[in-house]
C-alpha cells in the first residue's frame, strides 16, 4: 500500500459493506474508552428516535485500542439491542465502522478519515461528536443532523448553555473576530461537535491543506470558515448545557491559543480574498433556543491572572515591539503599570492588539508560532479586565457587552485591512 493512502484496506472493506448512507456520525475514541459506550448509546438512540427510516452509520476513528474498538465494533445485534427504545425500532441495519489510525493521531487525521468515509458513502448529513463530552444526548445528535438532512444546511455549529465565565476565549476573541472578518455570526466555530453536509465534506476533503499544523489541531474551525467563505448555508443549533469544566488560565492557555488563534490566523491567510471583500456580518439561522448563560460562581484566580499578564508583557517586550504597532504597544505598556484596581483593558485597544497580531502573522514578522504564543499574556490581561468589569453583571449585560465588542471588531476592520495590505520589511 502506498504511504499516502488514507484509508486502510480493512476500513475500505467495512465501508463497502455499509454502502450509501443518509446519515453519518463520526467520532474519535482516542483516550475515551470510558465514555465511548455512552456516546454510542446516545447516537444509536438518536437514530432510533429520530431517523428510523434513514441509512445510518457511526464511524469511529480509534487508535487500535482493544477496549475502545471492541465496544464500537459490536454489531447492531448486540449493543443496539440494549439501547432499543420501547416501541421504537429502526427499520434498517445500524452500522458501526472502526478506522484504526496509528498514534499519534490528531483531530485533523480523524476528521479527514471521517470526511473520506462520508464522501465514499455519499452521506447526505454528517456530524462529528466527542465521546468525551458528557452532555452528548440523543437530542443533541439529532439537532446537529436535522438542519442538514431536513433543512438543507451545509454547516451546523453548536450553541450551548454555558456558565458566564466559561468560553471566554470564544466570547472575547474567536467569536467577535471571526464574525467581523468573515461576516457570519457563528458563536462556536471552535467546538468538538458540529454538523456538515456531504457536499461540504467533499469540498474539504479535496483541499490540499491536511498537512498544515492549523488543520491538524482545529480542523472544525477551518471547515466552518471554508463553509462561510464558499457560500455554503450555515446555521447554529442549540445542544444544551456545555459540560466542559471551567479551565483556569494557567500555562495550558498557550497551547489553546496556538490551536485556536493559530488556526484562525491561518484561515485569515488562506481566505484573505474572501474576508477582505466582506463588508458586514450577517446573523445566522438558529435552531432551538439562542445562546444561554448561567451565573454559577467561578473559582478563577484573578490576582494570579493579573500577575501573569504583567510579567508576561514585560518578559516579551522585544517580541511585542516587533508585532504591535508602536502606538498600540505604547498603550499596552501604559496599562501594565496601572495598579490592579485601576487596570482596564479597553475593547478598542484589545481589538487593535489582535489586529496587529493578525497583520504581523500575515507578514510573518517573526516565527508565526512564537507570535501566537506571545498573545498569551495579553489575553490574560483582557480576561482579568473582563472578570473585574463583569463580576456583578447580569447575563443580559454580558450579552450587551459582547455585542459591543463585536461592533468594535467590525468598526476597526479597516485598520486591519490597512495593515494587512501594507508592505512590511521583515526583520531577519
Amino acid at each position, binding site marked *: 500500500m502506498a504511504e499516502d493512502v488514507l484509508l486502510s484496506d480493512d476500513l475500505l*472493506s*467495512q465501508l*463497502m*459493506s*455499509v*454502502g450509501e448512507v443518509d446519515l453519518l456520525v463520526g467520532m474519535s475514541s482516542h483516550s475515551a474508552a470510558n465514555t465511548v459506550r455512552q456516546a454510542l448509546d446516545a447516537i444509536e438512540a438518536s437514530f432510533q428516535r429520530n431517523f*428510523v*427510516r434513514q*441509512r445510518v452509520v457511526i464511524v469511529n476513528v480509534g487508535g487500535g485500542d482493544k477496549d475502545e474498538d471492541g465496544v464500537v465494533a459490536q*454489531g447492531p445485534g448486540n449493543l443496539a439491542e440494549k439501547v432499543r427504545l420501547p*416501541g*421504537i*425500532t429502526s*427499520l*434498517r*441495519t445500524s*452500522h458501526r465502522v472502526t478506522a484504526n489510525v496509528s498514534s499519534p493521531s490528531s483531530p485533523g487525521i480523524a476528521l479527514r478519515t471521517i470526511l473520506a468515509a462520508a464522501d465514499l458513502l455519499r452521506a447526505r448529513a454528517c456530524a462529528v461528536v466527542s465521546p468525551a463530552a458528557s452532555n452528548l444526548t440523543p437530542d443533541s445528535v439529532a439537532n446537529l443532523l436535522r438542519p442538514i438532512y431536513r433543512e438543507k444546511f451545509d454547516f451546523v455549529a453548536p450553541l450551548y448553555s454555558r456558565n458566564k465565565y466559561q468560553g471566554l476565549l470564544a466570547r472575547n476573541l474567536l467569536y467577535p473576530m471571526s464574525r467581523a472578518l468573515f461576516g457570519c455570526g457563528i458563536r462556536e466555530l471552535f467546538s468538538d461537535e458540529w454538523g456538515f453536509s456531504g457536499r461540504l465534506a467533499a469540498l474539504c476533503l479535496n483541499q490540499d491543506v491536511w498537512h498544515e499544523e492549523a488543520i491538524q489541531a482545529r480542523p472544525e474551525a477551518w471547515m466552518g470558515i471554508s463553509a462561510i467563505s464558499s457560500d455554503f448555508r450555515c446555521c447554529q443549533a442549540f445542544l444544551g448545557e456545555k459540560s466542559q469544566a471551567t479551565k483556569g488560565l494557567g500555562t495550558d492557555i498557550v497551547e489553546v491559543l496556538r490551536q485556536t488563534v493559530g488556526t484562525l490566523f491561518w484561515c485569515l491567510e488562506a481566505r484573505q480574498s474572501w474576508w477582505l471583500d466582506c463588508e458586514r456580518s450577517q446573523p445566522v439561522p438558529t435552531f432551538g433556543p439562542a445562546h444561554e448563560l448561567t451565573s454559577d460562581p467561578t473559582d478563577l484566580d484573578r490576582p494570579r491572572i493579573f500577575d501573569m499578564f504583567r510579567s508576561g508583557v514585560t518578559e516579551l517586550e522585544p517580541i511585542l515591539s516587533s508585532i504591535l504597532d508602536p502606538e498600540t504597544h505604547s498603550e499596552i505598556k501604559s496599562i501594565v503599570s496601572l495598579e490592579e484596581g485601576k487596570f482596564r483593558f479597553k475593547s478598542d485597544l484589545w481589538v487593535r492588539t489582535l489586529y496587529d497580531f493578525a497583520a504581523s502573522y500575515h507578514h510573518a514578522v517573526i516565527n508565526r508560532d512564537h507570535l501566537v504564543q506571545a498573545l498569551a499574556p495579553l489575553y490574560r490581561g483582557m480576561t482579568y479586565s473582563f472578570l473585574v468589569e463583569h463580576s456583578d453583571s447580569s447575563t443580559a449585560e454580558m450579552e450587551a457587552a459582547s455585542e459591543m465588542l463585536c461592533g468594535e471588531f467590525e468598526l476597526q476592520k479597516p485598520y486591519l485591512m490597512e495593515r494587512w495590505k501594507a508592505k512590511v520589511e521583515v526583520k531577519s
Partner: protein
Amino acid sequence: MRLQKDNLWYKDAVIYQLHVRTFCDSNADGIGDFAGLTQRLDYLEELGITAIWLLPFYPSPLRDDGYDIADYTSVHASYGSLEDFKTFLAEAHRRGLRIIIELVLNHTSDQHPWFKEARSSRENPRRDWYVWSETDTGYQGVPIVFVDTETSNWAWDPISKSYYWHRFFSHQPDLNFDNPAVFEAVWDVMKFWLNLGVDGFRLDAVAYLVEREGTLCENLPETHAIIRELRKRLDLAYPGAMLLAEANQWPSDVRAYFGDGDEFHAAFHFPLMPRMFMAVKLEDRKPIIEILDQTPEIPDSCQWFIFLRNHDELTLEMVTDVERDYMYDEYAIDKTMRINRGIRRRLAPMMDNDRRRIELLNGLLMSMPGTPIVYYGDEIGMGDNIYLGDRNGVRTPMQWNSALNAGFSWADPERLYAPVISNAVYGYQAVNADSQKRSEHSLLRWMRSLLQVRNAFQVFSRGTIQFFNPSNHRVLAYMRQFGEETVLVVNNLSSSAQAVELDVQRYKGYIPIEMFGRNLFPRFGNSPYLLTLGPYQFYWFQLRRI
C-alpha cells in the same frame, strides 16, 4: 389419478390461488366459471404449481366477494353447477393438482337459511345458532376489523328486535360455536366436500370462532378445542386432507393453531409478507431476519404458508406504526391505493413493473421456509385497477391473450363482472399469458423454470434455514438443509451491484452448483467466499461434496 399418496403433500406444494369468477368464462356471461377453469388446467400444470386454492364459490349475495356464504353445499349459479365442480376436481386430480377450497366457519351471510330461521323468531330452534343480545354493550373493547365501514361489532336486527354479533361486516352474523349443533352442522359441510374429493380447506377467520366476555374474543382456548375436534375427525375419516388456518396474527400467536400437530396442518405467515416488500425497498435484510427470528418452531407435520400478494389488501396489521407508515409512503403514496390497514395493489405495479425486483421477490418466496402461494396473474405480471373500489382492483379478469376481453370471455365487454386491465403498461394487449408462452424470456417462462427448480428439491419446502451474517446488510444469504440436500441462497436486495463475503468454513470442500444453469462455481475453502451480485440478483447454489 396421478396424485401421489402422501399425507404431507401440503409441505411440498406450490399453490396457485384463484377465484373461479376471475379465471375463464366458458358460457359468455361475463363471469368466470368451473367449466372455463377446467379448460385452463393445462396452463396451470405447465406452470408447475401443484395445488389450487379456490376462493369461495358458494351461493352468496356477494356482498363480501363470496365470504358471505348463503349455502355451504352448492355452487353459485354464476360459476356453474355442482357437476361442473366435480368435473373440474377430477380433471385437476388427473393432472396431479390438489384442490383446496375456502370455508368460512366463523359467520354466514345474513341470507343463509340458518340465519333467516334464527332471526324469524326468538323461539326458532336455530335461534341459538348465532350470537344474540338485548344490548350492544357486550364484549366491549373487541377491535373492529373493517374499520372503514363498520362502527360496531353488534348490529340491530329489526325482525327479532335484538342485536347480533358480527366480527366482520354487519351482513355476516357470527355463528355460535357454543351450540354443539353448529359444530355438527359445520362438520357435515366439511364431510360433504371431502366426500367429493377435495384435498383441504382454507378456514377463514378461525381466530374468532368463540366469544367470551372480558377478552378480545380472539384465539380463545374454546376456539382451539373446536379446531382440535374437527382435526381429530378429519384424521380419522379423511387422512391426507389438510386444514389451513387464516389467522392474521403474530407468528407466536399463530403457533397455538398448530397445537401439538393436532390442530391445523398449516397457517399463513402474515408478518413475513410485508417485510419482504420492506426489505427490498429499504435494501436491508433486517426486517426479514427479525421476523424469522421471532418465528417459533412448529411441529414436524406442520407448515407455514407464505405469499407475496393475494385477493385481499396487502395487510399491514402485523407491522409497527413506523413500518406501516413507511410501507404506505413507499408503496401507496396515492391514498386510493390504501384500504383498511393495507394496500390494494398487485405485485407488478408495486414493483414499478421492474422485472428484476419481481423476480427477486418470487425468488425469496420460493426459497424461504414454507409453502409458497402464487396469486393468479402475478406469474405474468398483471396490473391492478385501484379505482374499482374495495379490493376488486386486484380481482380483475385473467389476461389470457390480446383478443376480446383478454381471452377471458366472449361476452360483450360491458357485461364482464369487472373491466379488464387495459392501460398501456399492464393492459392485456401488453401483458397476457399467450404472448408470454411464446417468448423465451418472459416472466411466465421464467416463473416456470423457477418452479421447476423448486419442485425438484424438497429442501426448499422442508429444509432448515440458517442465515449468514455478512457485513453487507444489503445481501440476504441463507443455507437451506434437508437430508442430503443443501442449498445456499444469496439475494441482493439492493438496486446496485454488491459484493459479499460469506463465511463458508463449515462447508469447506463443497462445490456450489448454480441451480438454474447448473454451472460449477469455485469450491469452498478456508477463506470467506466472495460473490458479486448485480442489482436485485439472486443465486441458488446446490452444494455438493465430490
